[in-house]
């Protein structure tokens, strides 16, 4: 599904990703953990095609295509989805209108007819139920004045609508209350199949109890410094990052 080899990226002369290797197979769920500022969101942004970051080395293969060659919109149309850590507020654009545009552009790209109003509405109703999001919220300006939790739920709603092959969730669990967390996890699990993969960035083991990962990686100073199973997340929860940081910093020194 996604094969990242020695990916390096920087922003304004600052090296942030220093050689990432990651191989995600269809149906797998990978979790990425790591201290603040280690480069998790940067990795997510580079994969989604944010142009502020300059890729200085390495390659990314997504379903047989050179991902780094594609525009952000084409990456999305090919089946990549990023749930943003900080969803943007866009006054004057409703989620409904924006989703309709996004969905129909994607359909067109794949040679499908656009959904008409009724079909779109039906799909929306179905997905709204899945993430228990209110119609009123979706008619409002995109994310404007949404609570932190509402924004995150809206990201998952959009994911459900677009049915991506690979979804990257960047701290979607942050700021969610227990119920919302369960709803979000439920939304993800409903989409899980042998064909879909997830890359879940989180600070908390809690989410991984609901979305059980196949692999857990630790990102530190722009590299994946440790990989393991879900037990690694448990260990991190207990011991913190210090023991890993020490190992890595010693190895570098």
């Amino acid at each position: 599904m996604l094969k990242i080899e020695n990916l390096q990226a920087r922003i304004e002369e600052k090296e942030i990703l220093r050689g990432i290797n990651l191989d995600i197979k269809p149906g797998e769920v990978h979790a990425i953990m790591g201290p603040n500022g280690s480069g998790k969101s940067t990795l997510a942004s580079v994969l989604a095609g944010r142009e502020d970051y300059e890729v200085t080395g390495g390659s990314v293969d997504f379903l047989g295509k050179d991902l780094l060659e594609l525009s952000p919109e084409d990456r999305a149309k090919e089946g990549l989805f990023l749930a943003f850590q900080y969803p943007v507020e866009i006054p004057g654009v409703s989620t409904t209108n924006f989703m309709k545009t996004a969905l129909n552009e994607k359909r067109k790209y794949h040679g499908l007819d656009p959904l008409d109003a009724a079909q779109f509405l039906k799909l929306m109703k179905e997905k709204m139920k899945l993430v228990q999001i209110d119609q009123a919220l979706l008619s409002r300006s995109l994310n404007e004045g949404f609570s932190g939790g509402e924004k995150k739920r809206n990201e998952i709603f959009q994911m459900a609508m677009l049915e991506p092959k690979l979804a990257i969730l960047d701290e979607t669990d942050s700021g969610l209350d227990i119920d919302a967390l369960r709803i979000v996890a439920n939304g993800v699990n409903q989409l899980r199949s042998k064909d879909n993969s997830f890359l879940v960035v989180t600070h908390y083991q809690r989410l991984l109890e609901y979305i059980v990962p196949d692999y857990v990686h630790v990102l530190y100073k722009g590299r994946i410094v440790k990989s393991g199973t879900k037990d690694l997340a448990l260990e991190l929860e207990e011991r913190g990052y210090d023991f890993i940081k020490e190992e890595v910093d010693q190895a570098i020194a």
Partner: protein
Amino acid sequence: MDVKSNLKTAYSQQEGNSTHLASFQTENWKTFSGMGIPALKHEEWKYIPVKNIFKDEMNIAIESSNLEDTIIKKSILPGTEEANTIVFFNGRFQADHSIIHEKDALVVKSLETAAGDEDALFVEEHLGHSQAYHPDGVNALNGAFASGGAFIKLKKGKSLLQPLIIYHFSDSSNGFRFSQPRILASIEANAQITIVETYINIGGGESFTNEVIEICTGRDSITRYIKLQNEGKHSNHTGTTHVRQLERSNTHAVTITLDGAIVRNNLNMVMEDEHAESHMYGLYLLNGNTIADNHTIVDNRMPHCESNELYKGIMDDQSTGVFNGKIFVRKDSQKTNAYQSNKNILIGDQASANTKPQLEIFADDVKCSHGCTIGKLDEDALFYLRARGISEKNAKALLLQAFASDILGQIEHEAIKNYIEQLISERLSFQA
């Protein structure tokens, strides 16, 4: 022949009459002859090379209309087939082509007629009131040709069911056409009206419309006013919309500029009585070499008046958007509330925006605020939309439509709003 002699010939072509209108025209011709056309060094015209519009080959001759009904039909704004309409052709009011359905409420006649009948006093009192606010040759030149104007009266206590739409046709098929429409309107006490003005250049040549519309809004009246400009790259425009507001009258103006060569809009709200209220909204969506300049004035002459103003500009290519907002609060105008905001987005690398708030406040117990911004499209928002699979072009269009939406939302008439939304969507080449 040069432009001056052309103007003079056309001026003397007008048939004389013995009303106030004749002396008004003579006065204005004198003023124009003395002042001429404002140059760029004129503070109020510094972004508008209005002198360049006046060309020797400009055709100002007063000719009888050969306007065909099919052309008018084609230009009717979609969804307004039932509206009351006034037609101007080359700057002259065309009674024959104007259709007033709501005759018990609405009187429309030539300014010349009004100057000689029971409305003569009103004409004498109000015609030319804008001149004090625009003491320049452009305003005076229009006044000199006021004989072709129209007079509108909405009777006391009447509410129009349908809007009154004024179509200004300029026929440029025989060369550069200069038109100077003049309108005087009386919205009497407790009356309600929606007035729409729009401009059509037929013939595909160059055109220049220099318009003055003066409106007096009576006690407790409500006036909605929409000015829609989408004439094309060969059409120049200088226009003044001047409103005198009486007690508790409410005026709501929306000015939409989508196209043109050189465009100048003056919008004046003169609060002559207490508790008058005005709302002024504007959207200019420009491309190519268009220069559009919106000058607004709110003159608070009495206490307890309120004004609200929001103008938004989107400039692509080499276009220039100018906003100048004057708010005067006179000495006795305590408890004035006046808000003003101007926001601009530059898309084209060569595009520019100039914005200048001008507040002159001589009373102490007032609330006034103003703000202006000039920026680019929000990169984070753009990326967010693209990351969902929306093409860059559509993402930009969505964001710009959103930027414009609060101005369009001010247009109450659904069909007209939808029509303008569609024009904007086409301009931004949004592909559903």
